[in-house]
């Protein structure tokens, strides 16, 4: 059986759509499940607060599932759009778009569940802080969605770029690498950001007077945690927008695919590690506000060291892109 470009395009779009929706559901389900489990715990401690816990859980889960809806949007575009088969690169691009959004939604879905769970437990501990806790939880959850937004942007670029003038070799590897870079690197950043937001919500419920510093240190911690996702986005953009000379050799294509994989996988660990560092820092800043400056400095140094492996990955990715 001989398959033409249009048939391959359909195969790639259907499998990409399946991956997008499948991976997208994993993160949101774990995040929502975590929130529900924490809400159970909270209600068992104070059944009279069940109404408030329910409300907080509901709005938290609504925001947490945004990343899963991004995956759904891309999956449906892949399943129901007619793509022009001007180049065989498009086959790889649509597959990569599905993979990218699906992977990118995992971390944000899981991460957004952490602050929602902590807010549910926190409002039982400190009922008068319910409103402030919900607000802090929503801000933290919304920031957790940023890496999945990066993945969504790369997916849209992959789908709507005109590849008719690009050489098949090595461009197919560049589009696949771009999806892997943005999608995989978003996993660690999403989970890490969630850990930071969780400790901020816990801090507000334990030390209501430290609300402002808990929110501010959360935002600082989340911003740094997400830098590896930005590296992933950067490598994706370079992979997509750099001009490559046509080549029949396998090595240049493998270098581009390797660059995407290197940055994507290399971004997972630092994202989670930095999240753990900032999570601890926020916890102790809230408990000991007098030492906030010292703890923040230690946090920044710790995060910088934790991020070094992400920087190594980016350096290797850049070498693969520009030197090899």
């Amino acid at each position, binding site marked *: 059986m001989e398959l033409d470009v249009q048939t391959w395009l359909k195969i790639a779009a259907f499998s990409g759509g399946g991956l997008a*929706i499948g991976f997208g*559901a*994993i993160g*949101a*389900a*774990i995040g*929502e*499940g*975590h929130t*529900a*489990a924490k*809400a*159970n715990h909270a*209600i068992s401690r104070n059944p009279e607060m*069940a*109404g*408030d816990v*329910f*409300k907080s*859980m*509901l*709005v938290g*889960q*609504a*925001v947490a*599932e*945004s990343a*899963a*809806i991004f995956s*759904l*949007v891309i999956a*449906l*575009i892949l399943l*129901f*759009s007619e793509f022009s088969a001007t180049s065989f690169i498009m086959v790889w691009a649509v597959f990569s778009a599905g993979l990218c959004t699906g992977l990118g939604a995992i971390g944000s879905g899981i991460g957004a569940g952490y602050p929602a769970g902590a807010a549910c437990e926190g409002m039982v501990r400190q009922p008068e802080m319910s*409103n402030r806790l*919900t*607000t802090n939880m*929503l*801000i933290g959850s*919304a920031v957790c969605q940023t890496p999945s937004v990066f993945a969504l942007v790369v997916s849209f670029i992959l789908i709507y770029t005109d590849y008719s003038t690009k050489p098949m070799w090595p461009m197919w590897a560049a589009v696949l690498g771009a999806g892997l870079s943005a999608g995989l690197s978003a996993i660690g950043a999403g989970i890490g950001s969630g850990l930071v937001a969780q400790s901020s919500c816990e801090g507000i419920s334990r030390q209501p007077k430290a609300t402002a510093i808990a929110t501010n240190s959360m935002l600082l911690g989340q911003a740094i945690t997400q830098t590896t996702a930005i590296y992933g986005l950067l490598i994706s953009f370079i992979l997509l927008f750099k001009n490559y000379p046509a080549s029949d050799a396998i090595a240049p294509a493998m270098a581009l695919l390797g660059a995407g994989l290197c940055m994507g996988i290399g971004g997972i660990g630092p994202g989670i590690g930095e999240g753990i560092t900032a999570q601890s820092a926020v916890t102790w800043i809230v408990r000991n506000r007098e030492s906030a400056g010292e703890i923040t400095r230690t946090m920044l140094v710790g995060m910088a060291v934790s991020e070094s492996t992400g920087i190594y990955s980016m350096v290797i990715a850049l070498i693969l892109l520009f030197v090899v």
Partner: protein
Amino acid sequence: MIDATRKIQKKYGSQAIFIAIVAAIAAILAGARPIGKGLLLGTIFSVVNFVVMAESLPLRMRQNGKKSVFFSFGGICMRYVLISIPLVLALKSEKFNFYATVAGIFMIQAVILINRLMELMHVKRSNIRPTG
């Protein structure tokens, strides 16, 4: 417990629908009929999704940690199908703008965040205001 979530469903649902209707009328008057219709379609399903999510909460809450994740996964898959309806309609029909429909799908989330940010700004302004 159920009353609390019903109140929040009504509050955010009605606000989302109101914003969508105003924006849709403005778009239709400006000659962008598919954008207005797409936004309204997406918002309606966003609200329905939110209501289904709220009504299924008690089911998830009755489970322990692992079962809760399993029920959440099932619920998400079911709601995926629900949200797919307007998106597929928008992709298949030129009567609805696809991107406006996507924007509508996120209307509940947008209303929740805007509400909270406005409350936060109100609290900050009250704290700054001099007393006496």
